[in-house]
């Protein structure tokens, strides 16, 4: 049996687009640098309102949404996304500093496909983004 080179197919060719919604500018730069290094195209939004507008304006393969944000928090943004037929198929992962069961369930109830806990490791972030978007790192 010949071993299949695990990363041979579906290279991350820059066609996968990720929207990061977080009010922290350091966090946004972190997502951008990690995800761009893994071959993703990254868009940023600073709050739920901006995130929702960007999500409507162009298609994304993944949204990473912070929970605690001004104007519109992550839960509200998720509910808005899931209620909108045009964008509800977009996978969404929430990220929060809260790691309790209640917080996780709340994220799923609002419509998150997955959740991450801050601080998220570079490796974990890349792995989740790749698996969910069906991309392989370059």
């Amino acid at each position, binding site marked *: 049996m010949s071993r*299949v080179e695990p990363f041979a197919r579906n290279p991350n060719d820059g066609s996968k687009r990720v929207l990061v919604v977080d009010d922290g*500018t*350091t966090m946004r730069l972190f997502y951008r640098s990690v995800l761009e290094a893994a071959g993703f195209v990254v868009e940023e939004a600073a709050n739920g309102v901006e995130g929702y507008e960007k999500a409507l304006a162009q298609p994304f393969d993944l949204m990473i949404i912070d929970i605690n944000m001004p104007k519109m928090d992550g839960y509200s943004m998720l509910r808005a996304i899931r209620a909108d037929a045009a964008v509800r198929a977009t996978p969404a992962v929430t990220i929060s500093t809260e*790691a309790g069961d209640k917080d996780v369930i709340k994220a799923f109830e609002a*419509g998150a496909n997955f959740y991450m806990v*801050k*601080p998220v490791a570079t490796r974990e972030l890349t792995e989740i983004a790749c698996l969910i978007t*069906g991309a392989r790192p370059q």
Partner: protein
Amino acid sequence: MNSPLLDRFVGEARDLVQGAAAALLALERQPGDEASINAVFRSVHTLKGSVGLFDFPAFTKLVHAGEDLLSAVRAGQVTLTPERVDRLLEAFDQVGRWIDEIDAGGALLDGAVGISRDLTMALRAMLPAQADPAGARAANPTADTAAATLTALDWLGGLPEADRLAALAAASNGREILAVEYVPATDCFFSGEDPLTLFRPLSSLCALVIDSTAAWPQSDALDPYQCILRFRIVTAAPRSEIESLFRYVIEQIKIAVITPNQLRAAVTAGSPGAGALPIASPVAAPSAMVIRIIEGQRTLLATARTATDRMDRLASVARIVSNLLTVADREADLTSWSDAMALARRDETGHPVVAWFDRWLESQATTASQTPAETPPSQGGPRPRIETADPEGRPDNRVSANRILKVDQAKVDSLMNLIGELVVSKNSLPFLAKRADEVHGSREMSREIKDVYAVIDRLAQEMQGAIMAIRMLPVSEVFERFPRLVRDVSRKLGKHIALVIEGEDTAADKNIIEVLGDPLLHIIRNAIDHGIEKPEDRAATGKAPEATVRVKAFQDGDQVVIDVSDDGRGIDPEKIKASALAKGIIDADRAARLSDQEAVNLVFYPGFSTAETVSDLSGRGVGMDVVVTTIERAGGTVAVTSRRGQGTTVRLSLPLSMAVTRVMTVEAGGGMLFGIPMDHIAETVRVRRDAVQRIKTSEVFVLRDSVVPLVRLDNLLGIDAPIWFGNGDDEEAVLVVHVGGNLIGLVVDHFREGMDIILKPLNGILAGVRGYIGTALLGDGRVLLVLNLKELF
């Protein structure tokens, strides 16, 4: 050099800390204001998220402790007392210092851990016991001062011989030996605890065993942020010391008194220590993350409230699962998955999909428990490889609207200098036009040059305006510091003070704003320290116990004016006179003649201080004279008005911009041109020679009702003027100027035009020359010397 991520963090963190402190003060003024508590909480929360990206554990802990306290405040578990605000502000201050340290050296200085521990403890002490998140989740709640009793002592047998002998030795000295078991909460790292350092200060530590409460998970499932450690200690320290040391986590420890016999018995029981780490098996399990994500999709469907909601969620689930199966090399499962999806869509129910998840997850569990050889090699493979660098060659997609640029001040300053040069250079074009006509006889060329000049002139002016606008900052830049100052000082002095800030949007050039900060701080401190009475004194005079300090900024013509007024006791002119007499600033004769306002103005004299006792707040030898000097250097003025018993107002007036100075040019010394700052000039008059009178050797003239001394500019500057026959009509050109509150008539040869100039200070070997503020280049290439009248008189 710091990394871009760290630089971004430094910038953001500064803003966040500042925002948090401002919101906290607003909250203290308006307790229960939801917007403020949310703002301060969110700032700290975001900061916690950001700092977690870096390895600054001391920083992270402190921020976390602050967040916990704020969280308790937000939840209404504790009220925001002044003490709690103090602790939080201290923490914010420390965080601010750490940010500076990180900015300067990329790391925290030594001692950060200790500082963090002290401040964290102080913050945690402000939490009620039940609001402690670790306490809330503790398995066995107990009374909050005494620890539970430890029953399981079999581990004693596993202690090394030497440790047990040490304990026995302590016991033989008559001391009580305690066994302590400490199981920190699994999320203790997130609440800023460091279990090991917690008991380090114990005065006696005979033995220490660290093991885990459960078997160690395999390395890829290990979550390093979860604490599953168990600490077992044998100590001869008194129980009270232990309970005090562990007071914040008292429910997490158990204590038992052990007898020397128990220690000896344990030697014979000889059970091996519980501490050995199980070695993770080398089996490559199916990617844990794939399974976690699939579980997530199941949860997403299970938590849907309604059937429609569930169907809405199915779209994203379908997308993720097919992506996941493809990339995890589980294409074999794709068929059954599509079948389940088709079924779900047809019947509009989530059941087939949930059932598929259950089957799939179960099959993974069995695969995982099978022998390593049967695990397909690819299952360990899909873990993505991480590349951290080289984002080149990928589409750069950084579109962002309304981005605010943060620009280095030096760049704006150099723009300002360049535009200054440009304004001056363009002034040479009219001379060129004149030459074209007069020297080269080309009137047409002259006209064309003038046309071009008109265009360049307009552009240069607009550009100058635009650059000046960049440099304009709102006074709120300096006002932001005041709420904190007023709070701290008034708390220290036991005075109740409401700070009212008005017109913080008023803008002025950044140089002016920078100049304002320290003088204003000093004036406000003065007002609180000397001006405002103690509450009981206020009550005695029928005033409201809470005093008001009002800081008001507004624009008045080309000046920005800032009034600092208080409703305190006012300045007593008699006291001032007495004090000035005692200090030898004035003599008794003069004191008797001084008007009240003149007496009040004495506070501007160097070294003057009215407070009988010098407090550590304002009387630090820095008096109002320093304020005056600073403000005047920036081209501004300071005035004090005061009414006894009603309060004092200090008014600072400053030019909107220091970049452009308006001067009047005059001719003296037989054709030499000098500039005099317009704000000194009261008026220009022509005085008939025969109206000039002599008092001893001085010349004076009468301007309306007052006698004004005359000074000839030539004499003042020591210029040997050529013989001057007057300007033909037997009149002197006299420029009446204010110098230090007095009027002086300056005799010049001719008045020339007023103009806006870019003032350049004298530098190099000329820097020490007194009497001149600086120079400016004129359009025709001449250099204009601008006089500093204060230094000349």
